[in-house]
């Protein structure tokens, strides 16, 4: 099955995951991220050879965000899905966590829906772990995507954000199916 479809089925229906794609904790994710880094460092494409650290850093920020913001609060299954297909230049990350709205509402109670929460997450230095001074990871992701030949599709709740190279404006749409956690697809 296509990795994106598999991730959607996991976050929506809690379907089975191949063991190779499941990272139960951040240490497992870190070791698989290093493996991705090693594979990308051997790329033949000259441009990719120069920019792959940015791709790894973007995947690292998104994956670690899931762990940082759900630690001790996973609604059912802890951990994330982390899959990649270098031939398609695609990385997929997903979690069955609380989602961006619930996480950010703690430090910004005025947020009322998933669309607002997603825009806030990618544009403001705000953290669901306030008073800890955090919250620049997704801003970094946005800057890297729009300055490099990359794309990101990020869904949480019923909101989907698309980021593309050269497009500073954020496009957020309502999406189906609605789910609680997060799903990110990076193209590079």
């Amino acid at each position, binding site marked *: 099955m296509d990795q994106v479809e598999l991730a959607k089925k996991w976050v929506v229906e809690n379907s089975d995951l191949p063991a190779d794609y499941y990272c139960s904790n951040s240490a497992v994710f870190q070791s698989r991220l290093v493996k991705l880094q090693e594979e990308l460092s051997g790329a033949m494409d000259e441009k990719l050879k120069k920019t792959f650290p940015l791709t790894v850093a973007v995947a690292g920020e998104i994956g*670690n965000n899931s762990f940082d913001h759900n630690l001790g609060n996973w609604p059912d299954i802890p951990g994330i899905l982390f899959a990649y297909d270098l031939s398609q230049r695609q990385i997929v990350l997903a979690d069955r966590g609380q989602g961006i709205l619930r996480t950010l509402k703690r430090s910004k109670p005025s947020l009322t829906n998933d669309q607002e929460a997603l825009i806030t997450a990618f544009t403001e230095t705000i953290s669901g772990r306030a008073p800890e001074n955090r919250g620049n990871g997704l801003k970094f992701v946005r800057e890297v995507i729009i300055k490099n030949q990359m794309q990101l599709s990020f869904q949480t709740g019923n909101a989907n954000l698309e980021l593309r190279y050269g497009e500073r404006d954020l496009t957020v749409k309502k999406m189906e199916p609605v789910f609680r956690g997060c799903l990110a697809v990076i193209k590079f």
Partner: protein
Amino acid sequence: MKIELKKFGTTLVSRQNGREAYLAFLPSLKEVMEDEEVNINFADVITFSPSWGDEFLRPMAEQYGERLILLNTDNPSVVASLDIIERSYNLKFKQENQG
């Protein structure tokens, strides 16, 4: 004092690991003299993220100010991470890159 970041690993990407690295290195930082420069060398680091950098570099920037100098910061993930940290916290890191 010169700190070789590669000794913490070549994939420096999570807050947890950045915080752990900083705490583990704190005893060594006690050896820094009052007027001594602290050089942090990024050579051979492959992937660097703002989360790791935030936990490791920001406390050092607060403590050493102008005496903190970052070396070999030309990796694209280092450039992008330093940029977002500087803008988020209104900091300006001193940097020196050897051709």
